[in-house]
C-alpha cells in the first residue's frame, strides 16, 4: 500500500492532488469520484453576489487558455445556504477561495465561513477592477488582508499569490508574518489577446489570466523561489497536466499541488494523475511521498 497523504496547516490530505478554484463546480461529481481527491477549492466567493464580466470570457492560446470570468459567484450567504451542504458530502477536504474589494470585505466574509477545512485568500485575480492582483502585488496590503482574515477565522488560512508581484518572495514573507499557514503559488499570469478582425482586445476588460501548460515553467520557478525562501508550505499551481509535472513541482519544493485548466482538456486528469503517482512510487520502490522527495534532498 502506497501512502500518498500529505500534512500541512494541521490538516491531513489523503493525497497531494487538489482541484483548483474556478475551474470546477458540483456537476463534476457526474464524472469525477471526488472521494479520491486530496482536496478541492471552491470558486472564488465574495461577500455580495457578483455577475462577472461580459462574454467572451475565455479563449484558447497555444497549450493553454486565457480567461476573464470576473469572479462570477452567488455570494457567501447564498453559498452557505445552497452549496455548502452539498460540498460537505463530497468526501474530500473542502477549501473556500475568497475575494474582497476591500480589507473590511475580507474580514466580513471570513467571519461567515464555517464547516470547511480551510480558506484560500485570493489576492491574485487579474480579472477585477478592485482587490485581486492589486492587493497581491503589494506586500503591505497582502499583510493587511491576511491579518484581517486570520483575525476573523479559526480555520487554516492559505494565501494565493500572483506571479505579477515584482518580488513574490517578499509578498509571501508578508503573508507568513501575518499568520498564513501556507502559500498557493501561483494564480494566472496577466495576459492579452487581440481580436485581429476588430483590432481590439478580445476581452472587454482588456487583461485576462493565462493558465495551462503554457505557464508551467514560469509558475514552477515561482514555486521554487517561494519555497526556497519561506518557511510555510507551498501549494503549487500552474500548468500541471500529468504526474511528471507533479514530480517537478515536488522537487521544486511544493507540498501539494492544484490542478486547474487541465480538467478542460481531460476532466479525468485528477484521477489519472493520482493513479500515476501511485504507479511511479511502486515502480521506484517508494512507499510514501516523503521518500519521493528525499531522493532529491539527498
Amino acid at each position, binding site marked *: 500500500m502506497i501512502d500518498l497523504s500529505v500534512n500541512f496547516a494541521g490538516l491531513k490530505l489523503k493525497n497531494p492532488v487538489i482541484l483548483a478554484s474556478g475551474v470546477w463546480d458540483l456537476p463534476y461529481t457526474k464524472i469525477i469520484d471526488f472521494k479520491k481527491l486530496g482536496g478541492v477549492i471552491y470558486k472564488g466567493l465574495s461577500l455580495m453576489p457578483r455577475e462577472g464580466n461580459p*462574454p467572451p470570457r475565455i479563449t484558447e492560446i497555444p497549450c493553454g487558455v486565457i480567461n476573464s470570468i470576473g469572479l462570477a459567484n452567488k455570494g457567501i450567504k447564498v453559498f452557505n445556504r445552497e452549496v455548502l451542504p452539498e460540498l460537505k458530502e463530497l468526501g474530500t477536504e473542502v477549501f473556500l477561495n475568497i475575494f474582497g474589494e476591500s480589507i473590511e470585505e475580507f474580514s466580513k466574509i471570513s467571519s461567515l465561513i464555517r464547516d470547511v477545512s480551510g480558506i484560500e485568500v485570493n489576492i491574485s485575480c487579474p480579472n477585477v477592477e478592485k482587490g485581486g492582483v492589486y492587493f497581491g502585488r503589494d506586500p503591505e496590503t497582502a499583510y493587511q488582508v491576511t491579518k484581517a482574515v486570520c483575525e476573523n477565522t479559526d480555520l487554516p488560512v492559505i494565501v494565493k499569490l500572483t506571479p505579477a508581484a515584482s518580488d513574490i518572495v517578499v509578498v509571501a514573507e508578508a503573508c507568513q508574518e501575518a499568520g498564513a499557514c501556507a502559500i498557493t503559488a501561483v494564480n494566472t499570469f496577466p495576459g492579452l489577446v487581440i481580436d485581429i478582425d476588430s483590432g481590439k482586445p478580445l476581452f472587454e476588460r482588456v487583461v485576462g489570466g493565462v493558465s495551462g501548460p503554457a505557464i508551467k515553467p514560469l509558475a514552477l520557478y515561482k514555486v521554487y523561489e517561494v519555497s526556497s525562501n519561506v518557511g510555510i508550505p507551498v501549494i503549487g499551481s500552474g500548468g500541471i497536466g500529468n504526474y511528471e509535472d507533479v514530480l517537478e513541482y515536488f522537487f521544486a519544493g511544493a507540498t501539494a499541488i492544484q490542478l486547474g485548466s487541465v480538467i478542460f482538456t481531460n476532466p479525468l486528469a485528477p484521477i489519472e494523475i493520482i493513479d500515476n503517482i501511485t504507479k511511479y512510487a511502486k515502480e521506484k520502490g517508494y512507499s510514501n511521498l516523503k521518500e519521493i522527495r528525499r531522493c532529491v534532498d539527498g
Partner: protein
Amino acid sequence: MVTFRILPVIENRVLGPYTLLRIKDRNMHKEAKCGQFVMVGFPSSLDPFLLRPLSFLSIAEDSFSLLIKKKGRGTEKLSELSVGDELKILGPLGRYIIPPKSGILIAGGIGIAPLYYQSLWMSHGILFYGAKRKRDILFSKDFESRGFTVKTITEEERGTVADLVRENLEILEGQQIFICGPDAMIKALKDIIGGYTKQAFVYMERRMGCGLGGCKSCAVKTDSGYKLVCQDGPVFPLKEVSYD
C-alpha cells in the same frame, strides 16, 4: 450519464461547405436527449487545448454524427480527420428539452445542425432556413421527406432568414418556435417574433471552457442576469435572452 471517452471516427464526408463526422459509439443513443451536445477534442494533444462544443446532428445505435464548420484551428483539424482517427468525447451535456410534435424551426447557416437533430424527434413542421450561398443549404429533401415544409433564402440571392420570417409572420401565430444561428440573426428575430408567439426558444452558442458548469465562461445575458449555456441551456426562451 456523462462520460469522457476516446472514440474512433468511422466516416468523414464533405457536405456542402461543412464536414460530417460520424463517431462510433453504442452508448450515446441511450444517453443523449434532444437539445444536448458533446465536447470534442484531440487525444494526446495540448494544442488545440480546449474541447469544442458541438451539437449532435443525428444519433444511431452504433454511432453519432456531428456537422463541422471550419472557423478556427480546431474545427480545421477536425475536418481533416481520417477514418480510424480518435477523438476525446465528453457528453452528453446541457439541459435537454422535450420537443413538440410539430412546430417551426428557424436555422441560419451551421445552426441547421441542432435543429436537424431536433426535427428527428418531431413528426412534422416548418423549416425556415437561411444561408450565405445556395450551395450552403443542406438537407432540404430530407426534411421534406419527413413531413416538413421547407422555406429557404440565401444572402447571395435575396436576403436573410429574418427577411424570410418577416414575409411569413402569420404562420408563426401560436406555434412553438426553435431558433439556431448567429447572434445577429437571433437579435433580429427577437424583435420580429415577440408579438406572435410566447413560445419561442433559441439554441445559444458561446465559447466554452469546461462544458460542465465549472468555469462560468459560457455566459449569456438574460433578463435575470447571466446564465450558463452549458448548464442552464443550450436552449433558452427567446424572451429571456437580452441583447441590451
